[in-house]
């Protein structure tokens, strides 16, 4: 495996693991369903539109876009565990006909050309090792006039503190975040023109608060489970402190970005 594959495998494995579920609960990305709704509105998702949710995780976003916006959603994730959970949850909610999930890689999407009205990609573009290829895949599956909505971690031009780039495991998942201008350039390289950039930095702090709250309560209510799941509380808390400081220093942020594929649209 090359290092790109290592990172991808790491991310997929980490997000499928109990330890991460234990720490993150249902909030796999900053902003939760509130920011997902904002993304859906910004993309002007309407009933009957076909949406691809790339790095869909356990499928909460796909279900929300289907239920609240009436969209048909294809979710793709690199983790078989996540795809299985997402499929089961959709079936439980009686949405199996409206949302489907596929095992696959964002850099080689198992989806056809030119069929999608919009793509959502939440807190995942930063983890794709070959972002240019992923962007080209976005462009390939979008119809002309289609849109991409990304919410993601951004870093300042001067980059991350060294301590945040060389941490192992799931921590590596944010180590390849870029300045928002660079995301725009990468998308532009695939023919996708940025039309909106919104800053939501405070949502990272809220997510850190939530993770810290969960860890504290787990330490009270089920301390043995943290040990069994292999969570090293001290190192997680140390890492969270570093991220919090980086957010407060404007080194790390969170951004909603919209890009269009040129051509005739239905707008």
């Amino acid at each position, binding site marked *: 495996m090359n290092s790109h594959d290592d990172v991808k495998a790491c991310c997929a494995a980490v997000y499928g693991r109990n330890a991460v579920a234990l720490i993150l*609960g249902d909030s796999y990305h900053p902003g*939760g*369903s509130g920011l997902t709704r904002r993304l859906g509105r910004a993309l002007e998702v309407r009933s009957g539109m076909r949406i691809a949710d790339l790095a869909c995780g356990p499928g909460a976003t796909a279900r929300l876009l289907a239920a*609240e916006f009436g969209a048909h959603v294809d979710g793709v994730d690199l983790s078989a565990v996540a795809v299985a959970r997402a499929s089961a949850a959709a079936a439980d909610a009686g949405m199996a006909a409206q949302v489907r999930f596929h095992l696959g890689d964002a850099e080689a999407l198992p989806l056809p050309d030119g069929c999608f009205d919009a793509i959502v990609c939440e807190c995942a573009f930063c983890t794709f090792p070959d972002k240019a290829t992923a962007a080209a895949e976005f462009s390939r599956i979008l119809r002309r006039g289609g849109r991409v909505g990304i919410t993601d971690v951004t870093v300042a031009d001067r980059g991350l503190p060294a301590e945040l780039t060389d941490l192992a495991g799931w921590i590596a998942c944010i180590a390849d975040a870029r300045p928002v201008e660079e995301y725009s350039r990468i998308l532009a390289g695939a023919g996708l023109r940025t039309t909106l950039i919104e800053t939501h930095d405070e949502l990272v702090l809220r997510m850190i608060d939530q993770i810290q709250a969960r860890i*504290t*309560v*787990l330490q009270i209510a*089920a301390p043995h489970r943290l040990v069994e799941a292999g969570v090293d509380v001290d190192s997680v808390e140390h890492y969270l402190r570093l991220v919090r400081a980086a957010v407060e220093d404007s080194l790390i942020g969170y951004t909603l970005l919209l890009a269009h594929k040129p051509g005739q649209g239905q707008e």
Partner: protein
Amino acid sequence: MTESVAEPAVSMRNERVDRDEVFLEYTKSICPVCKVVIDAQVNIRGGKVYLRKRCKEHGPFEALVYSDAQAYVDSARFNKPGTLPLAFQTEVKDGCPSDCGLCPEHKQHACLGLIEVNTNCNLDCPICFADSGHQPDGYSITLEQCQRMLDAFVAAEGEPEVLMFSGGEPTIHKHILDFVDLAQATPIRNININTNGIRLASDKRFAAALGERNGRNGKAVNIYLQFDGFEERTHREIRGKDLREIKRRALDNCAAVGLTVTLVAAVERGLNEHELGAIVEYGIAHPAVRSVAFQPVTHSGRHVEFDPMTRLTNPDVIALITAQRPQWLRKDDFFPVPCCFPTCRSITYLITDGTPGQPDFVAVPIPRLINVEDYLDYVSNRVVPDYGIRAALEKLWSASAFMGTQTTEEKLARTAEIFDCGPDGSCGIDLPVAARDLAARAFMIVVQDFQDPYTLNVRTLMKCCVEEITPDGRLIPFCAYNSVGYREQVREQMTGVPVADVVPNATPLQPLVTQSPHGSKIAAPDVANVGVSPVRLGPSG
């Protein structure tokens, strides 16, 4: 040159000027002097929310209603559709707030019912919305009257969640234990006793008798204990006496017999504002205490002179708590209660471990574990992640939530479902065990601002879910009862002694008011068209 039309001196004269406020609501209120119903408007100015109105007879009035305009506007989403009671007690005739109640136009059932068993009290506090004390002209309800009031509550609610006995001072009523027994014989689930703690401090047999009734047939009897702070000045200015030792003994006696206590603090500007964090901390540390309720001093009944434009509101109280205990709480840990109007009450719960003051003490607000907004937003959400959790949060963020009741403990236990995660469903956690553990560690903080004759907004009042049960079987929204003239009406009916309408002891009203026989303020004899509220002139009131 043609460009010179923008000459400043000329344009100044013709320029239109913007108002300094955002017009937000058009509603109804009452004149605080004569209680006649008048139009009112709610405006935002300088980031704060004010209610303004004008009485033809007594002039303009304005008061601060919420000191955080953003929060006021944002909270509109957390307004739950009301639930119809099983029965209304009055008809719609003159419109709100003259038909109480409840009339069929009321938007919510009663989450909490109050029975005031007497007007007499063993204290004469300078601050008392009920205008109680050592008074020769008061009343005490009989067993028959109590039964009728309980029946009215049950007829309206079926299985009411909580009934509160209040007064006066309910513990000095000779039948208070009989009243508890009567209530426990009805479908009412839980009872609260609102008390100053004097009898609980001195009469261990009384505390034990309540302890025996607590938990009988799964029904809780809880104590709602006035507890304003730790400084002698706080006690003297709010209660007229230094009651610190009495409060301590009352709490210890409650702990000894297993009674669960809510500490209830009246918060007064410039007096005990700095003691709020210490009250929370004391409550967490005391074995009997599971919750604290902070209430800005209500400017109904008897109170010291105040400025309506700088009165304390819920956001002020939340700001004080979070400034005094920033390591535990911040503003967005408090969430508005959706059953009444969301601006009336905000609640948070802490999961605690250890003893406050010790280095290993931790406190985690539940809203940091669960994104409450995802469940209790009734306007923008169409998909709720889990309807069972929503139902649990609706009970926890409600005027009927009291620590120590079966309902609240069960719903707190549901919060453990946040650990219902991972591929195998539970992250390997023994959920029932974790649930019981978390429920037992929860500590509740309530912030509740009551309306007064200055701030009364009929829009808010129409969704009030705290009701005063009257001896003639009506259920009157708490803030209407205390502001519009119903309290005076009931007292007059019960005693046969005329009772003039109480007028707020507000600085701008000083020229119009005089002292009442009970220590509150009433309109001075030379003020026109005052004395008896219009709600008291109709056949039913």
